């Protein structure tokens, strides 16, 4: 039959594109169904990829051979490594993209992917097999597609409503129809769902801004690519400008709060704490008299969108007329013309606690969920989930066991674990402070952590695998040499390294751990300074963090040890001898997946854990 596939992906946003491409890379015959081909790879909000925490996710997606890093490199027009003054673990690669170039890059990558078909369709219905697992989808026009695995990546479209002040209209984002039938269908399946909201600022006409009068924010002189496959950035680079709100801006906002969709109570869904609308900022931080606003061009001059500016920092749901008055209070924006007003969007999400760590719905085998629909926000969060869901969809279709990433493997693992165990109360965004193994999980070692895993999953192309193999060998031999070469204190001190004259021999790794200057290292080990930067920086970073890394490794081992003691889904806590009723209830309510998770349940006593452990081990042994 023509419409029969291994994997169906619904939605061509960042989650859907990564899901479809990953499933196809794993060898599954995959179809991507989306409303409009034109919006595949569209950036709904800020035309930027990466940032702190998010940049980690992009590097991880790239390490698993995903699209986002490569597309951002092809489209980037303003690269900046955030947190450069801090250590490598919290460096945040970020790039602003030319919207059109980004979309083109995604289209090119998808078209070059084998086993992948792209089709325009509005999916209205899910079809289930008699055993309750998913069997396919039905579209608005009546077409049906069958597959043992379906990934839903509908973003903000499920019963989406957008708000301009008190004006509302059903839409997934401005100019795009919502997915109402699918939203109703998911609700009818009895899935736990809720409403969330997010907002976007107005877009301004670049020609109406007094651009040259404002402070410049230039990108890095040497743009650093996201992808290990990108040798260098070839696009011309542009600058942004910086302006700020002032007391007058805030007065206008305060006076108009009753007109805001967010503040008048028109929106029920919870918005995020960290990406607040300007209304939120003015109310919650009343003492601040000014907020910084970045003016970011949406494309290269002359390209489509090149005359649009994204004012980063004033997302709003005030009526368009108020938006204009407010914007015109700011320096450089006195005559600014709004091309498209800002708005808020409110949409359905699925409580991610209904999902397994492989992003499959527990209630409906074969049905995977990825992206904003799971309560996250951001392209990177969406893309990362898409990739993992896509790999799992393909594995399921091929009859293979699910794959997961743990909190100690990747930011992806941290995010998915947070989502499926804690749920969300606001749109979830990645921060480095969410990662307890932050010094271990770095953007710079994403490939070392994940490419080998991706190879075993079958989602990494041979070209990348070969390149990675070479890097790994180079790192190993450089590390070994740096461990073997040693000096007494005298020559080190002569070279300018501060060590105590204790007669102890120190290796190059020891010297690097002290944070010795590059010229000192150059005197001691010229070969090291001559290494390719990637290799050299890696050895240096590992040396600088070595004490911390060793401690985290110990903790990770303990976590794995205790995570490997599984609490079966159907485990009966009443059979555990010596558990008080209260303890039993706590365990039952949380139903921890394993012994490590059991220990994280608030209020359980050591002896209750002991008794649980005893039972689990007995079962394991039996």
């Amino acid at each position, binding site marked *: 039959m023509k419409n029969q596939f291994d994997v169906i992906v619904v939605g061509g946003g960042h989650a859907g594109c990564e899901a479809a491409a990953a499933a196809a890379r794993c060898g599954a015959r995959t179809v991507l169904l989306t409303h409009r081909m034109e919006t595949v790879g569209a950036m709904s909000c800020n035309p930027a990829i990466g940032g702190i925490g998010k940049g980690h996710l992009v590097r991880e997606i790239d390490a698993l051979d995903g699209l986002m890093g490569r597309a951002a490199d092809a489209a980037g027009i303003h690269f900046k490594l955030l947190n450069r003054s801090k250590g490598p673990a919290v460096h945040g690669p970020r790039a602003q993209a030319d919207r059109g170039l980004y979309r083109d890059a995604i289209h090119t990558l998808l078209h070059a992917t084998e086993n992948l078909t792209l089709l325009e369709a509005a999916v209205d219905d899910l079809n289930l097999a008699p055993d309750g697992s998913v069997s396919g989808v039905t579209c608005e026009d009546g077409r049906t597609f069958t597959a043992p695995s379906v990934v839903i990546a509908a973003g903000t479209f499920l019963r989406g409503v957008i708000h301009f002040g008190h004006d509302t209209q059903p839409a997934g984002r401005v100019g795009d129809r919502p997915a109402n039938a699918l939203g109703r269908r998911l609700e009818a399946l009895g899935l736990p769902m809720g409403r969330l909201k997010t907002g976007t600022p107005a877009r301004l006409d670049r020609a109406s801004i007094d651009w040259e009068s404002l402070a410049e924010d230039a990108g890095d002189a040497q743009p650093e690519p996201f992808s290990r496959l990108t040798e260098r950035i070839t696009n011309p680079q542009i600058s942004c400008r910086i302006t700020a709100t002032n007391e007058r801006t805030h007065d206008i906002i305060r006076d108009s709060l009753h007109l805001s969709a967010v503040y008048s109570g028109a929106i029920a869904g919870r918005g995020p*704490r960290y990406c*607040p609308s300007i209304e939120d900022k003015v109310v919650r*931080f009343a003492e601040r008299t000014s907020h*910084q606003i970045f003016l970011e061009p949406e494309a290269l001059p002359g390209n489509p969108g090149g005359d649009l500016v994204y004012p980063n920092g004033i997302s709003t749901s005030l009526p368009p007329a108020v938006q204009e008055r407010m914007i015109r209070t700011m320096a450089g924006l006195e005559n600014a013309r709004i091309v498209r007003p800002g708005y808020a969007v409110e949409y359905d999400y699925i409580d991610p606690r209904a999902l397994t760590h492989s992003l499959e719905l527990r209630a409906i085998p074969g049905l995977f969920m990825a992206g904003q629909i799971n309560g996250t926000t951001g392209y990177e969060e969406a893309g990362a989930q898409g990739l993992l869901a896509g790999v799992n969809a393909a594995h399921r279709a091929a009859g293979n066991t699910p794959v997961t990433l743990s909190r100690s493997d990747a930011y992806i693992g941290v995010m998915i674990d947070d989502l499926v165990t804690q749920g969300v109360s606001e749109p979830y965004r990645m921060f480095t402070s969410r990662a307890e193994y932050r010094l271990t999980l770095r953007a710079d070692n994403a490939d070392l952590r994940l490419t080998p895993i991706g190879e075993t999953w079958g989602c990494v192309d041979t070209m990348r695998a070969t390149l990675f193999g070479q890097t790994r060998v180079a790192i190993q031999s450089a590390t070994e040499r740096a461990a073997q070469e040693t000096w007494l204190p005298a020559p080190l001190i002569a070279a300018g390294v501060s060590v105590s004259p204790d007669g102890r021999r120190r290796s190059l790794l020891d010297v690097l751990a002290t944070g010795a200057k590059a010229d000192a290292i150059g005197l001691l080990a010229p070969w090291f300074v001559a290494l390719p930067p990637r290799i050299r920086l890696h050895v240096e970073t590992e040396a600088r963090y070595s004490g911390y890394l060793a401690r985290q490794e110990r903790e990770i081992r303990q976590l794995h040890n205790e995570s490997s003691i599984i609490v079966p889904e159907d485990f009966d806590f009443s059979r555990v001898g010596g558990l008080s009723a209260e303890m039993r209830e706590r365990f039952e309510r949380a139903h921890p997946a394993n012994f490590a998770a059991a220990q994280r349940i608030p209020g359980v006593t050591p002896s209750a854990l002991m008794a649980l452990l005893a039972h689990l081990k007995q079962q394991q042994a039996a």
Partner: protein
Amino acid sequence: MPTPSALRTQPLEPIFALATGTARAAIAVMRVSGTGSDAILRRLLGTLPAPRKASLRRLWRDAVHRTDALDDALVLWLPGPANYTGEDSFELHLHAGPAIVSAVASALVEAGARPAEPGEFTRRAFLHGRIDLTEAEGIADLIEAETEAQRKQALAQSEGRLGTLYRGWADRLRNVLARQEALIDFPDEDLPPEVEAALLTETAALRDEISAHLADGERGERIRRGLTIAIVGPPNAGKSTLLNHLAERQAAIVSPVAGTTRDAIEIVTMLAGVRVTLVDTAGLRETTDPIEAEGVKRAMFHVEHADCVVQMFFAEAAPDHLLPGALPVCNKIDLAPAPFTIEDVPVLGISLRDETGLAALQENLERRVRELTASGSIAPPLTRARHRAAAMVAHEHLKAALAVDWPEMRGEELRLAMRALGRLTGEVGVEDLLDTVFGQFCIGK
């Protein structure tokens, strides 16, 4: 019961706990278990003793540099897997003074061990397949009872002054950490420039407060366990007579024969509302009698480990020097007058026979007890060695936080400090932290 071998070989960090209860037994057994126990023991002793043989060894805070002798203890080195936990472990049989036990606990923390959670030894024993299910469940019941008692105690504490103090530290540390994390995660949000300087100042202030608290002369321990006052001096000075007087009963044998008291005699009484253990010791003199010699040795031990020493003599046997911090008391002034001072310290003259000067002595002792236990300073004292250990760990990480090169390293140290304080107050999760971040700064583009 078979155990997956992968689990058996997993290294787990070293933990320690007092094996005997906190009752005032003569000997306190400290147990240490976990990967790296050998290195810790080597640090305390210098060399590893022969396995599974009890040997008497001197314990040092750091044997290599011969810093701080802690005790002479019976040491048992029990390499894994054939022992209780199945891991490398050892036992230290210590003299049971609170000062010794807490000094050894501090030394163990410095060497890299941490206080065990209730039941953790048994859990490890189980993990390593050393005990079976029924045993484990039996032990679990015991721990339940013990935990319940500890929980009640902790609860009482959490409502008291200590709880307030710890929560105060934890709140402030959470605030510091939140600001640090905001600087790391939101560098583009034009946070006020003074944020970093302020968090460093606050970190230093916390470090100093915790350190002042740790250096409080272990007052809390003293209140809880009581004080020890040793009475020492030459034979026949009247030490046993004084003990009987203070105890208001005939606890020790009194006789005109010099060298009557051979072993230390301890009795418990109340002084200034504090539980005080009085120790009567053998008269200090050169002797050839092996039993008496051992008694003299123990007397010296008590001198070293008592909270307060009464140095007693009579006029003809007045010493030239005082033991450090000792209170000089000259007895038998009915026979000969007391010297005014020894080494510029005024001597208290008494006669136990005529009962003269005894009120002054009583008053003097009560004042010393109050001084040793009073909380003249800002903070209530640490009352449990466990709390002390947690505070010490937090202190170490705060110190490190001010010394590292990069903010994320500082963040790591602050998190570890927070985790240590979390043991006193209940854990703090990431969400709490984020709430603090977003509550304080306007963040988000």
